[in-house]
């Protein structure tokens, strides 16, 4: 792990600089008892930058994706086991952990085959490559920033320290920041060595591919920016390997490579989780369509109970608009008038903010609009789809973060609007017996659709019933407004709306000339108040509805996931001969799980047979193609083909290094990595 440890005390706390505390101060007593030096050390300990060099272990990996010759892919071993070296430091305000990689930039030629050749020399001080490399050191790690943090717990301070400076302890979150610093000479310590080529050498020409050890100033101005290229390479510098989408057998093989001892357990968990996600994927469209089909009924039920919401909103909006601070904001940031008319603005604002058309009128229009079927339906569809998609996130497979990608899609866009047919497993329950199973699940999870004048009797936990019951909790709003619709919230939103409008005019170039006619000014002030009131009221009602609806949707999806979990475990954990006698709790989910597990196993069997390797070698032979797979897997997508997935396990080694580095402070437990 770490070869040595050095702590740099780069900043002294101001309270310790004076040496001694004032007479009578509790510190003075402690200084008398324990000595000035000990007290100063204690106080300094949490306000300094500490830096340690670390070596993160790196492993060789086999990627089963080499197809240099069509039809004859071969396995290749990448990376090395020498480890990635860098510095970790802790400090700053707010307290953060910084990973710093020192990169030595040198001049050295390459052969036509890309091999290094000739002497390695220092890049001259005035050479443009220095400024360019310095720039890369600044921008390339930037992509990594804002992605993760280290999270841990600090115990309460006890003893004499706790008496002087009580600290109840609590969670500690340390943002992870990444840096690269250049090293220009040939002898100073460096973590990585890189050859830099001037603008005269075009990357991609013969013998000049870009890789982690060869950077090029001239990459043709391509939109695939040098910042992105070197951000990827920076990932390698902190120990991350390339990993790409894998088939199920390949993923099993990769798990075996990572740890043979846990491969079987992890493999079984991977397959169970795969089938769970296949079932949930297959149910996504039928469930979404069921709720979408009931949008009119849901909206009507919520509209019937919206009276107290409208009444509450009108009262709170009236109070917010007449607040002196809000009126003052309208006067200062509203329409500008000629010097002659400016004195009238005060009275115009008072009139507009007190007018019923801008309070109860706005409240009525906003509630009517937001409780209309299109608006409510769009909100529910969006939130329900987000909840259903949320279960398809990263999977924890025996402590290993894995992306399980159910190929295809539900035909629903990110707004929650069904725009096309579902594709792949997502369409598995569209026809035949699986469709009947999905209908059965939708009847229980969402509730049957209303087909006549009398609503159907739905189970107590059915989603539609739960949604339509929401207004029963709104009657009390006539007496007391909910927090989301309070005057204080509306005042804040009015202020935000006015500031945002001013920013939009200022940055967007939409500021108009001062108004010179009285009627025009009155109309402009009135419009300004009405627009801001409408914006604030609309925002508050949308926030209110989201806060009401979202938990209902999430609860329903959580229950569905639990049911699918149970049935998949039963189907995949019961011997085939005994399965018929093991009664399922939900026969429709059990049937879907059985069908989709059969589909998965058929593809796995076909791929395994197609990619079978000779005994004694790796479990998967990449030299043979495999039939198309419905499910693919990845372990480190950020380092391959997904631009925005930064998974916690990609930063886990940094947490391990941090925990063993001596950078943890007194009373702090182990930290783990979280993405943010």
């Amino acid at each position, binding site marked *: 792990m770490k070869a040595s440890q050095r702590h740099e005390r780069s900043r002294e706390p101001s309270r310790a600089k004076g040496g001694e505390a004032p007479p009578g101060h509790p510190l003075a007593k402690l200084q008398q008892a324990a000595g000035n030096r000990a007290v100063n050390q204690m106080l300094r300990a949490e306000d300094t930058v500490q830096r340690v060099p670390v070596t993160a272990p790196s492993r060789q990996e086999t990627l089963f994706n080499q197809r*240099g010759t*069509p039809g004859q*892919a071969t396995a*290749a071993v*990448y990376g090395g086991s020498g480890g990635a070296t860098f510095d970790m430091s802790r400090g*700053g305000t707010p307290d953060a952990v*910084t990973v710093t990689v020192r990169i030595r930039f040198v001049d050295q030629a390459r052969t036509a085959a890309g091999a290094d050749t000739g002497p390695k020399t220092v890049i001259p001080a005035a050479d443009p490559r220095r400024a360019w490399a310095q720039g890369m050191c600044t921008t390339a*790690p*930037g*992509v990594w*920033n*804002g992605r993760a943090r280290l999270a841990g717990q600090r115990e309460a301070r006890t003893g004499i320290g706790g008496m002087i400076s009580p600290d109840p302890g609590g969670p500690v979150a340390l943002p992870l*920041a990444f*840096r690269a610093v250049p090293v220009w000479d040939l002898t100073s310590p460096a973590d990585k060595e890189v050859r830099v080529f001037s603008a005269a050498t075009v990357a*991609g020409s013969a013998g000049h*591919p*870009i*890789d*982690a050890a060869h950077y090029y100033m001239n*990459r*043709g101005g391509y*939109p*695939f*920016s040098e*910042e*992105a*290229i070197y*951000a*990827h390479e920076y990932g390698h510098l902190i120990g991350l390997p390339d990993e790409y989408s894998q088939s199920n057998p390949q993923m099993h093989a990769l798990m075996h490579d990572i740890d043979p001892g846990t491969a079987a357990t992890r493999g079984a968990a991977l397959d169970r989780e795969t089938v769970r996600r296949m079932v949930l994927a297959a149910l996504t469209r039928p469930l979404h369509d069921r709720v979408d089909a009931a949008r009119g009924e849901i909206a009507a039920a919520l509209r019937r109970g919206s009276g107290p919401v409208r009444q509450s909103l009108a009262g709170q909006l009236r109070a917010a608009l007449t607040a002196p601070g809000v009126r*003052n904001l309208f*006067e*200062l*940031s509203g329409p500008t008038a000629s010097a002659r008319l400016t004195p009238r603005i005060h009275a115009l604002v008072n009139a507009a903010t007190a007018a019923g058309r801008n309070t109860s009128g706005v409240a009525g229009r906003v509630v009517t609009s937001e409780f209309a079927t299109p608006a409510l339906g*769009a*909100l529910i569809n969006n939130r329900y789809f987000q909840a259903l*998609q949320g279960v398809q996130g990263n999977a924890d497979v025996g402590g290993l973060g894995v992306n399980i990608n159910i190929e*295809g*899609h*539900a035909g*629903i866009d*990110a*707004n929650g609007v069904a*725009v*096309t047919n579902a594709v792949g497993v997502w369409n598995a329950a569209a026809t035949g017996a699986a469709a009947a199973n999905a209908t059965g699940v939708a009847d229980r999870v969402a509730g049957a659709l209303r087909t006549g004048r009398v609503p159907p009797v739905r189970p107590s936990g059915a989603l539609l019933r739960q949604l339509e019951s929401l207004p029963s909790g709104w009657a009390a709003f006539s007496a007391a407004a909910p927090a989301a619709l309070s005057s204080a919230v509306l005042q804040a939103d009015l202020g*935000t709306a*006015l*500031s*945002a*409008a001013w*920013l*939009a005019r200022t*940055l*967007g170039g*939409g500021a108009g000339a001062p108004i010179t006619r009285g009627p025009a000014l009155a109309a402009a002030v009135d419009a300004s108040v009405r627009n801001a009131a409408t*914006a*604030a009221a609309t925002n508050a009602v*949308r926030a209110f509805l989201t806060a009401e609806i979202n938990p209902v949707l999430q609860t329903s999806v959580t229950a569905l996931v639990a049911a699918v979990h149970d049935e998949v475990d039963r189907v995949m954990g019961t011997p085939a001969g005994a399965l018929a006698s093991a009664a399922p709790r939900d026969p429709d989910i059990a049937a879907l799980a059985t069908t989709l597990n059969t589909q998965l196993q058929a593809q796995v069997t076909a791929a395994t047979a197609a990619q079978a390797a000779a005994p004694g070698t790796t479990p998967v032979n990449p030299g043979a193609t495999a039939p198309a797979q419905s499910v693919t897997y990845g372990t480190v997508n950020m*380092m391959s083909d997904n*631009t*925005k997935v930064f998974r916690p396990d990609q930063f886990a080694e940094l947490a391990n290094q941090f925990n063993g580095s001596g950078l943890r402070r007194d009373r702090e437990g182990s930290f783990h990595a979280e993405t943010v």
Partner: protein
Amino acid sequence: MSTPALDLSAARLAVTWQAPGTHQVFALFDDGAWFWTLASPADPWSALAGAFRCDAGDGERAALLDLGARVAAGAVPDSGGTGGLALVLAAGGRTVRVDAGGEAAGEVTRATLPLLAVGRRRPVSAIEVRAARMAPPGAPSVLGLAFTAIGVEPTQLRLDAESVRLIGADGPWQQVPAPRMGLVEGAGNLLDGLYAPAVIPAGTTGAWVLAGADAQPGQRVRAGGTVRASGPWAESNAPLLAFEVSAPVDLPR
């Protein structure tokens, strides 16, 4: 999220650049070429997200068609995962990965570079973001992001309130408190983007106030969400794609 993606099945050649912080796609169709930028750390694209039209001259078009034909015929070797970055080329139902610094990538560069310069001047539906800390009259100084619809069509987007970051030039960053109100245009109308999709009319600017955040010199603001991608398809079929934009913060002097 498993949602409909760009439908490039009709493209004679499609090129995708993906890397940490980068997602851009170029596609040549029979009736023209399109470029979608969804994330880039490099100027001028870092502040942009959306769809652009590219006019291809005969020479450029011929070169791209030739490359597309070779991809479709399997004549462009897949470089696999060799440790460097790759471009994904697709044509005729075949997809290959080629090294970013390799010969095929160089060919793509030479053919598309002039087209992208043209495309930058021809946004169809796209937003350009600016960041500034300013003090509106009567209000305290606020950090804000301005989204301007720079294309000839409206731009529809959603914003991820949890995605906003303030990032220093040398690495330190902080998460910005999630705003509770979305975009507002100059007349004070709510465009939203948080609870409902924001539709920004062409030429209009919507501002997003990032309350509770302060900015220091040299910092950038990064934000993300989804944007509707115009293209050679009906508007109702336009996919919603994740985007990420960033801009340096203009500070008052």
